[in-house]
């Protein structure tokens, strides 16, 4: 009888201990989350954010205007050179045109692959404190571009921004910059070239291991399909060269 009571007491003690341990772990986890949370320290935070957004928007508007002017100037130069055909020789103009195609200064039309990539559901990209694997990151876009290039894509664009060899794809917080221009999801990546090779490359588990896992586990939206009528626009950015020169040997 006494033994039974002792046993019952032990079981009760054990139960209480388990409750304490679980509660303790829970409190510990809560404390960590609390300590790690960033608390806005700035005053007039909303005003600051508003001014920053306005500044970013004004630079983006200016960038749009500058790029339009660049496109117009490049067109005018082409027309002027065409008019002066007898002085510049047709062969030179043909060489120039094929070089423009090579460096991405001509729009291209053709069959290719179209990929649509977007953030997972229920994540707020606009919140700067959200650092989340359910968002599409600049690194994801770089990996897809690399996979398409290894599949011999001849022309690529993301949301109509032509990707050339020197295109930077970066991020600032949750903002993705392609050719230093701010892009928002959904990201539509268009690539002209050998469709079966490109589809094979983007399906290759070795090419996009991280993204494929997040598409499966975190609902990142990813859809790739063959498109017979893609139009990849010309590159509209800066091609200035300040440091490079022809090497003629020592």
């Amino acid at each position, binding site marked *: 009888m006494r033994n039974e009571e002792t046993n019952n007491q032990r079981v009760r003690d054990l139960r209480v201990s388990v409750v304490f341990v679980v509660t303790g772990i829970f409190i510990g986890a809560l404390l960590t989350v609390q300590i790690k949370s960033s608390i806005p320290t700035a005053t007039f935070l909303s005003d600051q954010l508003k001014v920053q957004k306005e500044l970013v928007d004004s630079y983006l508007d200016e*960038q749009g205007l500058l790029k339009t002017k660049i496109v117009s100037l490049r067109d005018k130069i082409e027309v002027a050179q065409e008019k002066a055909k007898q002085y510049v020789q047709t062969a*030179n103009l043909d060489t120039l045109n094929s070089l423009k195609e090579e460096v991405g200064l001509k729009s291209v039309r053709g069959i290719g692959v179209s990929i649509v990539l977007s953030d997972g559901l229920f994540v707020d990209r606009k919140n700067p404190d959200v650092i989340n694997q359910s968002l599409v990151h600049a690194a994801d876009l770089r990996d897809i571009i690399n996979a398409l290039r290894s599949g011999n894509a001849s022309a690529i664009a993301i949301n109509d921004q032509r990707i050339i060899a*020197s295109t930077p*794809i970066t991020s600032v917080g949750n903002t993705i910059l392609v050719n230093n221009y701010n892009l928002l999801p959904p990201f539509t990546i268009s690539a002209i070239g050998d469709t079966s090779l490109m589809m094979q490359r983007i399906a290759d588990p070795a090419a996009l291991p991280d993204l494929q896992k997040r598409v499966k586990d975190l609902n990142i939206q990813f859809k790739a399909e063959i498109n017979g009528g893609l139009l990849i626009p010309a590159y509209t950015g800066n091609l200035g060269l300040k440091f490079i020169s022809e090497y003629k040997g020592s």
Partner: protein
Amino acid sequence: MKHLRKPKKRELSLLLTAILLGLLISLQARSFQNLGDVINRDNRADVFREIQILKETNDNLGDEIKELETQLEKASNNQDALQSVMDEIKKYEFIGGMMDVSGPGVSVIISEKVKALWLTDIVNELFSAGAEAVSINSIRLTNSTTGFDTIPSGQIMLNSVILNVPYKIEAIGDRKVLNQALSQPEGILERMQKLLDGVQVQVEEKDLIIMSKVR
């Protein structure tokens, strides 16, 4: 009415230990989550960096416009039109890798095998910092270069050539800006070295880098 039993010393110490355990588990979980995930591949720069990038981009676009206006003037004058075409041809031959080129820049040597994504990211960082030409193990990266391909043996292939270690990445441009972009605190190289424990990377500013044309 049931009275609550006063907790014993043993239970209180258990509670404290469990709180500590909870703290440790959470911290560990967070650091595991941080390791190796896609988020670490990009710099967590703030909005001021975005404004800086946009301003620099617009300044560069302004320079490009001035250059194009001069070019248009030349192209509109029959006597100078040929020169304008030849200037443009030369410029695009530089960009397209059809000429041997040289200039100041940086050289990056990675002594051990790394995944292709790190090479993609370093190249991206260099172009983002204004590199005008980049090569890896003497292969120029142009629009006609293929992407980095990882073959089943784990080696990286570029333009059907296997890249052997050490990987030597060279870039022509403003060497100080390029070096700073790579070597800044929390920059690409620091992040790579943190995640790939012990990988040796050497960055050197060079007065002259020579790159052969694409073959």
